[in-house]
């Protein structure tokens, strides 16, 4: 199976090309069949790959020469490590389910084929990103998933909000990407390679002072900084890329707006896979972060702050998808927190369980939106009766997200909190715990508003057929049981991800902390019930909270702040510079022209249109210049 790994990303690429070539000529059924088949075969291969690495450990990279690049040669290739294999499995699994779900969700859309083209291109890029063997190739796929996200967020291009959101998503992540771009270049200039294995072995040598920076003989970097500064700087720059992609504070603003895209896109790209790429990047570059405590502390703090900050916004949003989007930001914060405190396995564990339960929540929300044609929570209600499968699976996802045992999220989130506590980050632990409380409140607020009470709309809601309910059921099972892959009783994933000895920290289970986080989750559900379920005391509470409510509802005014301190100055600067360009720089040019013209008026009768005269004048001019040149050349 290992030998077939390259097929996993290539199959969706083939599907993309086939759909691109046939365009609208193919039926919706055929388009879905081709796409689902491409990722389903990938899923089967991935299962084989996981089994193989589980048995044999990581495999050596397979690479091909791409371009002669100065003294080095760039390569393209793939590498199967345990981490990569796990990601392959997660991505193909969620993709298969979302591809199936989309058939019904996008049914009748004028650009149905285009939708699946973009999805296939995305899955190809995401899988490429996951199994790449070097940083440059990672960056290439990193940008490609970004552009697919841009295309899919703006899929309904005629909606102005979608157009703005697509652009915003691209530009904000671009800011992060530039950080990663610089980081990769600095890593190359320091180590002479883009290959993960080479970069890591250099880091190893730097740590034992066996090597110095500047493998390619460039001294500009060495003059600017010592090895430790270089390690910290590159780690931070790589992390800037992760912050953009994984929508961490302060670059989180694009993800909630990206909800303008079709809901299957939100489930696949903006919950389960692409946004997790930032966390994956930090995991892939773990040796770099381990080598710099400053960088890891930064990762932990950004993660912890994002977790509580985004959760606080999720409490009050009216749009069902936006609540879940802020939840995603918050959960990605947990994963970053894990990476930052060194809990490598916990972070990846949470990435996996989150992929399942968050894709589930989005698809269930999609099922609701599909049925009601609204995303406003206050226009829903009572759907438990009409949509029993959606209801049951959403509940499983909500319990998993809230960290209620034995659902998947409990095990992974608890691992992270335990590791944070154990590593002495008590403030961040408190942040995580408060965020967990908020999480339970906001997701059960959504649950009660959507499924309990009485239905407020006029459309008759119903389930969307088996292509919609089957993915929900599969993900529902995963959200319920996937946590058992890494319990304190049987740490299967932990063993799988650390074939060559421990990576980072993996503290033993702490039953006390486990009980605390479970209780916090239950308290959150209780509060949500009293406010939105039975009690209906929400409005009164909102009034009592006053300013805090406004702060949360308006997303801490971050968008407004950025508009004021970044967008406005940039646009003003551009307008100013444009004015300067037209009236000062070009004005000066025209002034010189005018002076020449006025001077020329007296000579204008010599300009008689005779080419010979012009030629003569030119010849004299050239002769004069030639004399100057000869003088410079040392001839005269």
């Amino acid at each position, binding site marked *: 199976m290992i030998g077939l790994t390259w097929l996993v990303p290539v199959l969706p690429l083939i599907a993309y090309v086939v759909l691109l070539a046939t365009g609208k000529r193919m039926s919706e059924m055929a388009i879905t069949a081709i796409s689902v088949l491409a990722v389903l075969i990938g899923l089967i291969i991935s299962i084989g790959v996981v089994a193989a690495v589980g048995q044999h450990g990581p495999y050596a990279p397979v690479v091909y020469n*791409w371009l002669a690049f*100065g*003294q080095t040669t760039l390569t393209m290739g793939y590498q199967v490590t345990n981490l990569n294999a796990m990601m392959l499995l997660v991505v193909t699994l969620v993709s298969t389910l979302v591809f199936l779900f989309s058939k019904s969700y996008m049914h009748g859309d004028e650009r149905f084929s285009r939708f699946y083209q973009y999805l296939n291109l995305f899955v190809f890029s995401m899988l490429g990103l996951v199994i790449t063997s070097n940083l*440059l190739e990672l960056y*290439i796929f990193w940008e490609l998933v970004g552009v697919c996200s841009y295309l899919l967020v*703006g899929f309904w*291009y005629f909606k102005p909000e979608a157009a703005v959101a697509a652009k915003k998503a691209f530009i904000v992540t*671009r800011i992060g990407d530039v950080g990663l771009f610089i980081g990769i270049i600095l890593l190359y200039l320091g180590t002479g390679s883009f290959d993960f294995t080479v970069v890591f072995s250099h880091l190893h040598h730097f740590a034992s002072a066996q090597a110095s920076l500047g493998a390619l003989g460039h001294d500009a970097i060495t003059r600017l900084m010592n090895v430790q500064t270089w390690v910290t700087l590159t780690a931070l720059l790589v992390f800037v890329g992760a912050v953009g992609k994984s929508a961490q504070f302060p670059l989180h603003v694009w993800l909630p707006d990206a909800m303008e895209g079709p809901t299957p896109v939100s489930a696949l790209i903006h919950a389960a896979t692409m946004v997790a790429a930032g966390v994956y990047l930090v995991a892939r570059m773990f040796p770099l972060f381990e080598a710099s405590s400053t960088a890891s502390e930064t990762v932990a703090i950004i993660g912890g702050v994002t977790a509580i900050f985004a959760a606080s916004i999720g409490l009050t949003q009216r749009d069902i998808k936006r609540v879940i989007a802020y939840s995603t930001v918050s959960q990605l914060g947990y994963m970053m927190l894990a990476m930052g405190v060194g809990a490598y396995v916990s972070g990846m564990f949470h990435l996996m369980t989150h992929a399942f339960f968050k894709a589930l929540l989005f698809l269930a929300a999609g099922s609701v939106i599909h049925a009601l044609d609204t995303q406003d929570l206050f226009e829903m209600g009572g759907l438990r009766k009409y949509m029993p499968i959606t209801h049951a699976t959403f509940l499983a996802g909500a319990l998993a997200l809230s960290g209620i045992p034995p659902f998947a999220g409990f095990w992974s989130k608890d691992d992270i909190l335990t590791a944070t506590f154990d590593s002495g980050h008590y403030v961040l632990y408190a942040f995580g715990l408060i965020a967990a409380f908020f999480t339970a409140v906001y997701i059960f607020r959504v649950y009660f508003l959507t499924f309990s009470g009485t239905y407020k709309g006029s459309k008759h809601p119903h389930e969307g057929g088996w292509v919609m309910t089957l993915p929900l059921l599969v993900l529902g099972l995963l959200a319920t049981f996937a946590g058992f892959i890494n319990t304190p009783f049987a740490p299967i994933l932990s063993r799988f991800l650390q074939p060559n000895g421990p990576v980072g920290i993996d503290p033993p289970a702490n039953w006390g902390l486990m009980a605390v986080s479970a209780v916090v989750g239950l308290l959150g559900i209780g509060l949500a019930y009293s406010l939105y379920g039975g009690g209906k005391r929400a409005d009164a509470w909102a009034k009592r909270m006053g300013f805090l409510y406004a702060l949360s509802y308006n997303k801490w005014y971050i968008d407004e702040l950025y508009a004021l301190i970044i967008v406005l100055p940039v646009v003003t600067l551009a307008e100013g510079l444009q004015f300067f360009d037209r009236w000062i720089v070009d004005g000066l040019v025209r002034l010189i022209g005018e002076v020449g013209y006025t001077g020329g008026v007296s000579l204008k009768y010599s300009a008689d249109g005779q080419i010979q005269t012009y030629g003569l004048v030119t010849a004299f001019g050239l002769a004069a210049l*030639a004399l100057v040149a000869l003088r*410079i050349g040392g001839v005269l």
Partner: protein
Amino acid sequence: MADVLLFIVLIPLLAGLLILALPAQARGIIRAVGLVGALIPACFSFAAYLAFDKQTTDLQFPFTATWMSIANAYNMLTLHINFAFGVDGISMPLVVLVGVISTLTMIRSFKVTERVKSHYFWMLFLTMGLYGVFAAADLFTFFFFLESTLVASYLLIHIWGGEMRHYAATKFLIYRGLASVVLLAGLIGLAYAYATTAQVASSSVLIPNAPNFLTLSISQLLTEAKLIHIPAGTQNVLFLVFLLAVLMEEAFVPFHTWLPDAHEHSDTGTNMMIGGALMKIGLYVLLRFAVSLLPLGLAHYALWLAVFGVISILYGAIVAVASKDWRRLIAFSSISHMGLVLLAIGSMQEIGIQGAVFMLVSSGLLTALLFITVGAQADRTGTFKIENLGGLSKSLPVISGVMLVAALGSVGLPGLSGFISEFSLFVGGFAVFPTLSALATLGMIFAAFYLLWAMQRTTFGPVNTALPVMTDANAVEMVPMVILVALVVLIGVFPGVLGDVVHGTAQAIAARIGG
């Protein structure tokens, strides 16, 4: 195969002369002759590219014909004025670029209905000039063809341009004319400086083809540059002269204001030729003469190049944000991209030089692609003003899609040619000027901002009801768009198709400048 470059340069001229002999009403035949006159040399250039020997760094496919000899021109030396051609790894790709751009422009120009005969004549004349500039192996030959591009493009702007075409054309002529004069001074100075030095050194160094030290032959100058060094002081002065010429020729800030005007007031075909091929000359001059033949001068002014480069990157990108007209936006975007090339050349790294050729080719293809798509939508909507557009994806899905490819290519999206170009240039830049290069990366963010914002206002959003009912791209637009997209993707996915040809020469230049 030996005289292939001669044919490449001559065929467009012969086709042009043939057109002059045709009656002006025979538009169909004129267009056909124009297309064939560009297509045949393009095929030849492609064949030459395939036959290009990647092992040698000498000028290949050499051709020399002496035009006149001046005995006793200087110190008893004879000066041969030659028409000589020959290409190496940096000029070969640019010759093919001219082939691609000129052929596609001829196809696009089928849409021209005004003064078809002279339009095709001057287009072919410009094509000849561009081939000659990049294929020249002699200083005189180079300058001769440089001047012929000036005449042809001036007339193309002047006759077929938009509202303010006379103003724009005159500005274009004055700026580029001035650049040519300064450049001529540099070229002559270069020849004489080498002659003087070679003659002095001849007692100790054996120089091939001696004793004629006074030469305009580029290949001989390159050979001499390996053996002797003209004095540092002379190199510095000459380099400064070249730098001044290049700053004007390539429209670097603050000598740039002619370019946005020229682009804004030219027709689509002319813009494709100017943006796609003509605007590569300045940096080619820098690489061919100043970098290769004045290594000490380069070292002396390296920081200046980097600073001028970064100024152009940021200035161009910021003004592009405020540009209201698509053509001005493209002009400022191209100023910004060329600034990055200047920064990388200043770094004197092999990878920077390779990246420079990549960027020249890539931006040539992408600029032409942007102009053809922007022109195609303007032919239908009647406007280039971004604020008057919107929702074009609905009525013009193909043109909008290709426009998006061009925009993303300019932003540097991997998989398209812009990425590997930008990446190579930045690796070169960071190796020597980390701080300046970090500043330059702001240009990457601005590029995403102005291009995607312009796309949002052009192709996204609700359909603009003020716009007429439109039909999507026709064959005359489709063929150039498809070919350009295919090439942009080809270089993006398999950069080796270009890199293999460039690599050896870039290595040789780097060895000369010590990078």
